[in-house]
């Protein structure tokens, strides 16, 4: 049953299995295990980013294509919902219609970019996506009549999801059963389903072809698989998954703006999560996203303390400043591409094998 749910892709290492199970349980019972707004925010963020990072891994890890437009697709999904709710009011219909429109636009855009740049050489793709994504971000911040510009859009969500809504009287293990809880479980279950769908995808014959393309495009073509078609299909699939993750974050945050969806910083975060967790395995996305977001939320405080503690020494406080944590991540990123190209998951699996 579990094997079937995981599409036959077992973790393959006892340590990995335990860690994954722990992450799953913590996320599943997050509202009860870690009460408090901040930890619930973190848990929801982890859920959404697992989907986002896994969808990026579909492209980077499984197909071997580097895209810098993933946040653009993420943003289109989020803005679809945000604009629909702003226009038609907070209802499930607007979420559905807005999300569907976002996913449709994403698929068309991904198809176009893929056809233009993957036709000749895959390396074009990285550059073209970088250019298109930044043009898109500029465009969104300029079309303020539709997108709210740099300020973004604030909106209400359907009443059931509001914190003020009481689902039942009384408490369960000391936690109020309100709309916020329901919303968290909406995000959690959706993320879980999306993740399992992607796991299914990469373990299907289609996923195997993608890996073949990654390993040797020329040979895959010789065997009779149209490489362009598979690369473009992977692009479109991964982009629509990212758009769905965008829908989730739009509903969860009740706010959509360039900083939460489109910014290049998020793109770099996603890259780091994939590489640190492990390219070419869906479980890498889980580990990478969880570790990264926990570090982002809690490690920066630690760095601030270290910076204060070393304030007597020159230069060191500047290097340890919480704002500079990307510096250390960048170094870690380069080192892990050199020495652990398979990431944490690859290491654990390698040890078990």
């Amino acid at each position, binding site marked *: 049953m579990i094997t079937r749910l995981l599409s036959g892709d077992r973790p393959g290492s006892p340590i990995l299995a335990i860690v994954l199970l722990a992450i799953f349980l913590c996320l599943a019972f997050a509202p009860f295990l870690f009460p408090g707004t901040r930890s619930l925010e973190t848990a929801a963020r982890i859920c959404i980013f697992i989907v986002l990072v896994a969808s990026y891994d579909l492209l980077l890890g499984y197909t071997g294509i580097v895209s810098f437009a993933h946040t653009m697709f993420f943003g289109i999904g989020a803005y679809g919902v945000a604009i629909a709710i702003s226009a038609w009011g907070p209802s499930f219909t607007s979420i559905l219609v807005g999300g569907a429109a976002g996913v449709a636009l994403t698929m068309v855009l991904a198809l176009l970019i893929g056809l*233009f740049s993957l036709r000749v050489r895959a390396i074009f793709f990285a550059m073209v996506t970088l*250019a298109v994504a930044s043009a898109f971000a500029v465009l969104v911040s300029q079309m303020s009549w539709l997108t709210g510009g740099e300020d973004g859009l604030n909106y209400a969500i359907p009443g059931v999801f509001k914190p003020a809504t009481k689902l039942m009287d009384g408490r369960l293990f000391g936690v109020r059963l309100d709309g916020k809880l329901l919303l968290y479980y909406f995000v959690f279950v959706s993320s879980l389903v999306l993740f399992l769908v992607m796991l299914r995808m990469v373990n299907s014959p289609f996923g195997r072809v993608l890996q073949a393309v990654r390993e040797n495009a020329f040979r895959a073509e010789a065997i009779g698989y149209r490489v362009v078609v598979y690369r473009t299909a992977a692009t479109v699939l991964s982009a629509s998954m990212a758009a769905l993750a965008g829908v989730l974050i739009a509903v969860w945050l009740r706010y959509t703006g360039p900083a939460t969806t489109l910014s290049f910083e998020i793109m770099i975060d996603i890259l780091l999560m994939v590489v640190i967790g492990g390219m070419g395995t869906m479980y890498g996305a889980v580990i990478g996203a969880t570790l990264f977001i926990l570090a982002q939320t809690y490690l920066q405080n630690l760095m601030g303390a270290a910076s204060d503690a070393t304030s007597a020494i020159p*230069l060191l406080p500047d290097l340890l400043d919480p704002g500079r944590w990307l510096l250390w*991540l960048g170094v870690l990123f380069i080192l892990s591409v050199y020495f652990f190209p398979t990431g944490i998951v690859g290491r654990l699996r390698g040890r078990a094998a």
Partner: protein
Amino acid sequence: MSGTAIRPKFERPSLSEIARERAPLALVPVLALAGFVSIGSFPTWVTLTVAGLAMGMMIFIMASGLTLVFGLMDVINFGHGAFVTVGAFVGFTVLGLLAGWTSDPSVLINLAAVFLAILAAMGITGLLGYAFERVIVMPVYGSHLKQILVTMGGLIVAQQLIHVIWGPDAIHISRPETLQGSYIVGTALVEKYRLLAVVIGLVLFAAMTYILNRTKIGLLVRAGVENGEMVEALGYRIGRLFLGVFMAGSALAGLGGVMWGLYQQTITAHMGSEIMVLVFIVVIIGGLGSVGGCFIGAMLVGLLSNYAAFLFPKLALVSTIALMMIVLMWRPQGLYPVVKAK
């Protein structure tokens, strides 16, 4: 020897082949003409065209190194923007130290200050290019995926280090005294600095064309672009050649950074990655590895951005992407594809 010595037979290219080869050259005047028709006013058009050419020259300076590095060693450097930023910061620091020179009313002393700033920036970015090639790029030859990731990591680290060294705020500096203001040509306004940028760009393009086409080094570089293994087999160390080209490309990026900084009069740690978007568009339009194509692409992008910024202020960047798409539809490898003899 008899008169029947074997002579190599050169086939003369047919007219249509020449037309195909030269067609991209016509794009720049065509675009300028289209700009004139849609703008309508001659003085405005002259101002915008000079601005576009100046911008194009600066982008060309930054992009040429990137495209050569790719052509020669099949290495794509996403961290190229870091050199632009570092060049700009070093140049501005030097100009700040030479405040007395830049406020002098003499043209020569002003130019000397700019020249020193450029020299310092190119020196530092050249050295940085050496370190970057040895430490970051060398271990990942042959794998595009890793190159993109690792050079992107290098860009992040470089940007953060700039934050640490120069602080997080944008730096403003005004141009040297005599480079401010504009000339009035007929009824058109032409900024002095833009003319200087065009001149520097043209001189550099001429120098590069000369070096690539008339010197031994240039011959080796071009041969390396065509077929690196063969050059190596003939006894030249292509690794060293590549390192030289990488350093030169980084130094050019530094030069472009100083010029761009003086153009905008404001620099931030993110400027490099913002300009890289335009640089990539130019490199793709020109054809990866082609210097001539890169020049035409840079002019096209420079002109189009300025025309578009005047006609439809919000669509400047989008218009250049549309241009890239159109060029790719016409020539899927860019204007001048570099054919590898592999």
